[in-house]
C-alpha cells in the first residue's frame, strides 16, 4: 500500500487542497498506521512550534566581525580615496576598477587559502550522515530472534553498545541485552526485516543495517535495525541509530541515536 506522505503532511499542516482531502480521508479510513502517524505528527508539530525563541548571547559573531574589519582595512587604502573625491591623475572609473580587482583578489586568496570551516567548499553539498557501502561495518547477514520484551532503556543500550565497537562487529551489550536464540521460530530473513524497516522509514533504502533483531518492544512484536552512519567515505562511522518497528504493519514504535 502506498502512503501519501506529502498529503498527510499537508493535512497535519492544515493546508491540504480540497481536491486532495477526499483522497487522504479515503486512505486514512483503510490505513491504521497512517491514522496513528498523523496523530503523532500533529502532536510533534505542536510541540516543535511551541518551543520558545532563545535569548541570544552577546558576542556570538565577534570573531567574524573582527575578521571582516581586518579585511576591510586591507581593502580600504584602495577604496578610501574614492570616497574622498579621489586622487588627481587617473580617471575615477579606472581607480574604482582597480579597487574592485584588489578586493576580489584578496577575497579569492581568503577563500582558497583559509581552511573551510563550513564543512564543504560547496554550500550546495549540505549533507547529513553519509550512507552505504563505503563503511567498514559488516552488514547484518542474519536476523537474531530474541525471546525478550525490550524497553526504551534497552534500545538505548543497544545503540550505546556500539561506542566500544564502532567497526560494526556485533557489540556485546552484556546484561543490557542477553542474547538467546529461540529455536523453532519462523525463518526470518534479513530481507524480510529490512523490507519492513524500509516501509516504515523510506530513508533507510540506501542504508545497510549492521544488526537485525526480532523481539518484542513493550509487549509488541517488533523488528529492530541498527544502522551506523558517519561523515563520508573511508571515514569511521560516528553515529549509531536504532529503529524499532512493529512486526505487523511496520509502523515506527521507537528510535534512538547514539554518538560513537
Amino acid at each position: 500500500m502506498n502512503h501519501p506522505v506529502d498529503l498527510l503532511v499537508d493535512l497535519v499542516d492544515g493546508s491540504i487542497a480540497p481536491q486532495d482531502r477526499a483522497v487522504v480521508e479515503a486512505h486514512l479510513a483503510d490505513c491504521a498506521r497512517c491514522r496513528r502517524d498523523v496523530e503523532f505528527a500533529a502532536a510533534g508539530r505542536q510541540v516543535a512550534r511551541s518551543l520558545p525563541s532563545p535569548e541570544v548571547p552577546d558576542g556570538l559573531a565577534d570573531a567574524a566581525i573582527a575578521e571582516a574589519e581586518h579585511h576591510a582595512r586591507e581593502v580600504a587604502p584602495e577604496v578610501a580615496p574614492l570616497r574622498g573625491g579621489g586622487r588627481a591623475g587617473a580617471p575615477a572609473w579606472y581607480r574604482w576598477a582597480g579597487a574592485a580587482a584588489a578586493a576580489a583578489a584578496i577575497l579569492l586568496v581568503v577563500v582558497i587559502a583559509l581552511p573551510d570551516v563550513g564543512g564543504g567548499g560547496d554550500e550546495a553539498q549540505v549533507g547529513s550522515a553519509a550512507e552505504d557501502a563505503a563503511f567498514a561495518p559488516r552488514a547484518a547477514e542474519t536476523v537474531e530472534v530474541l525471546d525478550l520484551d525490550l524497553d526504551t532503556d534497552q534500545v538505548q543500550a543497544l545503540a550505546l553498545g556500539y561506542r566500544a565497537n564502532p567497526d560494526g562487529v556485533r557489540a556485546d551489550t552484556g546484561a543490557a541485552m542477553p542474547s538467546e536464540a529461540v529455536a523453532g521460530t519462523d525463518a526470518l530473513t534479513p530481507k524480510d526485516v529490512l523490507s519492513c524497516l524500509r516501509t516504515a522509514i523510506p530513508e533507510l533504502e540506501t542504508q545497510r543495517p549492521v544488526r537485525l533483531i526480532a523481539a518484542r518492544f513493550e509487549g509488541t512484536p517488533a523488528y529492530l535495525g541498527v544502522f551506523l552512519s558517519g561523515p563520508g567515505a573511508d571515514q569511521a562511522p560516528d553515529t549509531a541509530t536504532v529503529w524499532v518497528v512493529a512486526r505487523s504493519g511496520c509502523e515506527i514504535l521507537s528510535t534512538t541515536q547514539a554518538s560513537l
Partner: protein
Amino acid sequence: MSRDPSDDRELVRRYLAGDAGAFSSLVERHQARVYGLCLRVTGNTEDAADATQEAFVSALRKLGQFRGDAAFTTWMHRVAVNACYDLLRKRSRQPMLHLATDEDLPEPEAGPPAPDHADEVAGTHDAAAALARIPEEFRVALVLADVQDLPYEQIGKILDVPVGTVKSRVFRGRIALAQTMGIDREPRDVSRASEDEA
C-alpha cells in the same frame, strides 16, 4: 522576521566593496535566527554558540561566492546547517556524549521556576531534550519547518533535496519527537518527572 532581500544583497555588495560595517549589519539581521537554528539542532547552548560563531566566520570567508540568485537567508541557513553538522561530528569524536541517555540531556539554565511556571519550564525542557534525541536528518528538517517556520520549498533549497524529501523528513521528525516525548503514554505529572513510568 520580514526582511527585504535586496537589503541583504546590498549589504553583501557593500561589504565586498570594503565596508566592514555592512557585514556587522548582516550579522545583526541574522544572528537571532542562526542561533535559534543552531540551538535546536545541537541541543545545548554551548554548542549552539560555537556553531553560530563558525557559521558567521564561514559566511564571511565565502561571501565572495554568494551569487545573489538565491535569497541571502537561504544561503545563510545553508551555511549554518553545515556548521551544525560539522560541530555534531566533532563532538561525536569526543569521549563525552550528548545523545541517547537522560544523564546527557541539557540541564535547565534557570534557577528553580516560580510554582505557577513549573509546568511550562519542565515541558519546554522535555521538548528541547526530546528534540535533541531524534535523528539529525529529521531534526534539522523539523527545526527549519516548525521552529523556524520556513516554507518547504526554501528548506529544499537549504538542504539541496526535493520538496518531497523535506516533507518526508519533517513528517518522520514530528512522529519521532512525539514518540520520544512519550505523548502516546499517560500524561506525566511533572512533579514525578524523575520516577519511572509503570
